[in-house]
């Protein structure tokens, strides 16, 4: 049933009960002083996230200026070779992993609750945990630069250079650590965004009415789910090689450095679009406002977003044109690299058409958007050039490539980000930036950028390689480098001016934001800590244009859920396609637990990297306990089964099974998990194909079939036991004592399964240090062992909940989600066993 939107049929009437707004304010109030650190509201976390990401942008920018100062003149001695290596590695790593990805997720976390009309996204504590892990870990990672421990092998850390033989210190380990934090925050962000966009939209916001920015973030979040597992698996393998001498990437022992490149770039190329698409989404949101007309080609843009999302996964090997892959494979990738230009061009033409149709106001955001189009199109054109294999062979690893990807990344992401900062800054404290400063900063940034990076095309074509710390005067690159350096400092001046003006504005006192650009989207509704007073009923794609009274109605409490129906924080859950109200989702309060868990996580990895094993495990235990406490609190029975969200509308509180947001989050997490496992299987297949002639290679043996068979049977038994208890518990047939016995039996079965598998490999003499094939088998085994450990933790947690009487029909999210994890572990274990046993026989 679609809810009414005519003026006299709004969900709630006036006057509203006394104290309704005050109660909302009290429930959602942001803690003051040092207690602010326990805030979990996505709007607050989003602001912290954006500020931290911008800090990393500035820090990495300073490193860029150091590099440009070094290269300004030939034979310069400002930085020595070793320091220069650390500086360029940190510049690339920090820009890509600690600035670009986090800032796009940060802006999404800040904007989306308002844009979707939700009070908050469904997992605020997860967002807080992801942010703190990223901030603490990222800052610690950056500080390695000051003690000479920063990584120095380039931002993509190719082995063998990053292997123990050529990088014996801890520098490369710190790179792997830094990546680990962004892996955590990116996956957490993706879960939050997918579930949030699909299920917490305002009623009436059907798939066809979703703001285009939300569409982009949905596509991007799904891309993160499919892209990140490759780099998670790659970094795990590299760390295993460095820590335990498992030779995945050492050619002399059957490994292959190219395996790293496949894994890294299967993440690395989609990552470019993971960075660009959110910026494109922001552009698609801002352009209709500055042109004061609806976006042209909404449906074509959605199709183009999906197209880019798919095609971007076919481009990974275009970073590997010179590593010796077959020409046929290279040609397929080259073709895909050109095909991706089509959906990208669809978006650009839609923006131009929107500007053409509307009446454009030249403001600071407009200037940055026009700058974006100019710079990004140039970067896209050189992208098509380097997609041509023979041309790429000529310019690979030269400054032409440096110029190309800076045009794409700065053009495609940084220019839209500046436009977005100027455009959405009024949401923070109600003030806009100075137009005069904005124009000056745009001029300096645009001019400085082109002066810095256009000459690099020429120095690259003249043969200047990337990553050289100096060059000889006779090579003739001096003038181009001097121009680039002057441009870089002008660019830095423009960025400094922009940020100074932003800081000036942020120091002004708070006032209502209003709608300074006359924008059509919901984030411009009047809002407080609780977001908008009531959750709007939407009937079009541009709600604030099509229903001018909406802001007043919402602020008066005439739409859905004008107060707190459950007595706590909450938001509406709507159906994913038609956005029909389904249930009220209670949201968790502010808490220290995400911060404690994040500190524990960051300390665990940092201490482990420095070799302090015992303190590291103490911190790891702190992190796990904090997470379990947080899960304990959030899986609770609702106080009342149903609440009133409008005068004639009641909804249930919370949901179970596949209707629950936690179930969806677990499914997304398990998708990531399965894909990581698939990458380990890929490493095994790759190592098997390299073991020329005999598989297993000489000296390695498969376990006797009885052990893997027994392991599979035990895994199946464990899963059957768990499914039995889940189904019986769903009908309230099982007493708690028998339920606990079944959990313990399932746990014993899982442990036995792993023990059988382990014993089989032990008897077969598995030695992971001997050659890459054995290392790959050991990696699959270790991953399964990790899952069994997690299952044991989950089983203990369920037992504790059962003993405390908290495993009931009304609070069974823990049981349902553990069941998913249990079955996934069983299937992975069986798939691993079958692959290890059958592939050598198939290969003969």
């Amino acid at each position: 049933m679609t809810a009414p939107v005519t003026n006299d049929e709004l969900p709630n009437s006036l006057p509203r009960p006394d104290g309704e707004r005050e109660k909302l304010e009290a429930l959602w109030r942001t803690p003051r002083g040092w207690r602010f650190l326990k805030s979990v509201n996505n709007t607050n976390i989003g602001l912290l996230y954006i500020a931290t990401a911008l800090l990393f942008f500035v820090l990495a920018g300073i490193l860029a200026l150091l590099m440009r100062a070094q290269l300004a003149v030939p034979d310069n001695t400002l930085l020595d070779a070793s320091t220069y290596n650390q500086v360029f590695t940190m510049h690339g790593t920090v820009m890509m992993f600690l600035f670009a990805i986090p800032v796009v997720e940060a802006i999404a976390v800040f904007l989306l609750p308002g844009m979707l009309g939700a009070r908050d996204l469904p997992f605020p504590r997860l967002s807080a945990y992801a942010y703190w892990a990223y901030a603490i870990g990222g800052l610690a990672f950056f500080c390695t630069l000051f003690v000479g421990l920063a990584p120095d092998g380039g931002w993509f850390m190719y082995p063998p250079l990053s292997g123990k033989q050529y990088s014996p210190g801890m520098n490369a380990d710190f790179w792997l650590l830094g990546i680990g934090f962004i892996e955590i925050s990116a996956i957490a962000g993706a879960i939050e965004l997918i579930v949030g966009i699909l299920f917490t939209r305002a009623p009436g916001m059907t798939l066809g009415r979703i703001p285009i920015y939300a569409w982009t973030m949905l596509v991007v979040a799904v891309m993160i789910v499919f892209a990140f597992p490759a780099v998670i698996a790659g970094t795990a393998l590299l760390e295993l090689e460095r820590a335990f001498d498992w030779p995945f990437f050492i050619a002399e022992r059957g490994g292959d450095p190219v395996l790293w490149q496949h894994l890294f770039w299967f993440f690395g190329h989609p990552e470019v679009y993971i960075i660009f698409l959110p910026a494109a989404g922001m552009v698609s949101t801002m352009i209709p406002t500055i042109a004061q007309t609806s976006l042209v080609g909404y449906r074509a843009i959605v199709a183009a977003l999906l197209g880019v999302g798919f095609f971007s996964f076919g481009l990974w090997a275009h970073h590997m044109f010179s590593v010796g892959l077959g020409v046929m494979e290279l040609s397929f990738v080259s073709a895909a690299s050109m095909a991706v230009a089509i959906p990208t061009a669809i978006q650009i033409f839609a923006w131009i058409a929107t500007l053409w149709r509307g009446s454009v106001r030249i403001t600071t955001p407009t200037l940055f958007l026009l700058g974006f189009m100019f710079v990004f199109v140039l970067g896209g054109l050189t992208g098509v050039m380097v997609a041509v294999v023979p041309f790429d062979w000529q310019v690979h690893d030269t400054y032409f490539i440096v110029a190309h990807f800076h045009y794409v990344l700065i053009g495609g992401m940084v220019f839209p980000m500046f436009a977005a900062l100027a455009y959405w800054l009024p949401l923070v404290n109600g003030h806009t930036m100075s137009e005069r400063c904005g124009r000056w900063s745009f001029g300096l940034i645009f001019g400085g950028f082109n002066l810095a990076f256009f000459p690099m095309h020429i120095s690259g074509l003249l043969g200047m390689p990337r990553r050289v710390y100096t060059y000889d005067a006779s090579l003739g690159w001096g003038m181009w480098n001097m121009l680039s350096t002057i441009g870089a400092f002008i660019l830095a001046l423009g960025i400094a001016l922009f940020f100074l003006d932003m800081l000036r504005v942020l120091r002004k006192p708070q006032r209502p934001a209003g709608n300074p650009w006359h924008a059509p989207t919901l984030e411009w509704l009047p809002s407080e800590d609780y977001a908008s007073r009531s959750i709007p009923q939407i009937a079009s794609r541009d709600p604030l244009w099509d229903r001018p009274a909406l802001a007043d109605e919402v602020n008066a409490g005439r739409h859905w859920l004008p107060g707190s129906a459950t007595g706590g924080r909450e938001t509406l859950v709507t159906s994913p396609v038609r956005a029909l109200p389904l249930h009220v989702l209670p949201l968790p309060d502010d808490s220290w637990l995400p911060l404690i868990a994040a500190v524990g996580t960051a300390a665990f990895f940092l201490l482990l990297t420095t070799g302090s094993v015992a303190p590291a495990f103490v911190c790891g235990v702190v992190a796990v306990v904090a997470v379990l406490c947080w899960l304990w609190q959030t899986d609770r029975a609702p106080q009342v089964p149903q609440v009133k969200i409008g005068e004639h509308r009641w909804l249930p509180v919370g949901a179970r099974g596949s209707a629950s947001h936690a179930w969806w989050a677990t499914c997304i997490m398990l998708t990531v998990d399965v894909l990581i496992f698939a990458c380990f299987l890929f490493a095994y297949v790759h190592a098997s194909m390299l073991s020329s002639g005999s598989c297993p290679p000489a000296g390695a043996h498969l376990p006797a079939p009885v052990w893997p068979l027994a392991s599979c049977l035990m895994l199946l038994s464990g899963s059957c036991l768990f499914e039995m208890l889940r189904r019986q518990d769903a009908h309230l047939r099982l007493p708690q004592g028998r339920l606990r016995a079944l959990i313990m039996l399932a746990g014993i079965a899982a442990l036995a399964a792993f023990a059988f598998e382990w014993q089989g490999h032990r008897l077969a003499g598995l030695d992971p240090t001997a050659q890459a094939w054995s290392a790959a088998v050991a990696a699959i085994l270790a991953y399964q062992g990790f899952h069994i450990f997690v299952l044991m933790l989950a089983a203990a947690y369920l037992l504790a909940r059962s003993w405390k009487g908290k495993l009931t029909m009304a609070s069974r999210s823990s049981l349902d989600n553990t069941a998913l994890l249990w079955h996934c572990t069983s299937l992975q274990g069986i798939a691993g066993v079958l692959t290890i046993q059958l592939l050598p026989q198939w290969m003969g």
Partner: protein
Amino acid sequence: MRDRLAPLSFDACAPLLLWALHFFGAYVFAAAACLTSLADTEWMGRSVIWLVLIVWTMAALLCALWLLIRAGRRRRPDGRLLSGVRLGCAALGLVGIAWTGLPLLLLSTCVA
């Protein structure tokens, strides 16, 4: 959930999934087969690898064309999101597969 999200998503993305299947199938087959004796095997004077890839590409192109025609027939004038996105994805999928197949007109054997 009451909405049929999964079938709807599949309906819209089917042409792009077909592109992914064709692309990765062609890539993996070429990469793996070129390491085996198939690299030197010919049938009717043409490389077997090339013939397999041509058949694979033609089959994918026919499927993509069918999806495009189907999307065109199911297009609704009311401007619904799904019908437009389905058509757009079908066009992109067809172009993507055709593009991936183009190298086969120029390359006929494995070259390392």
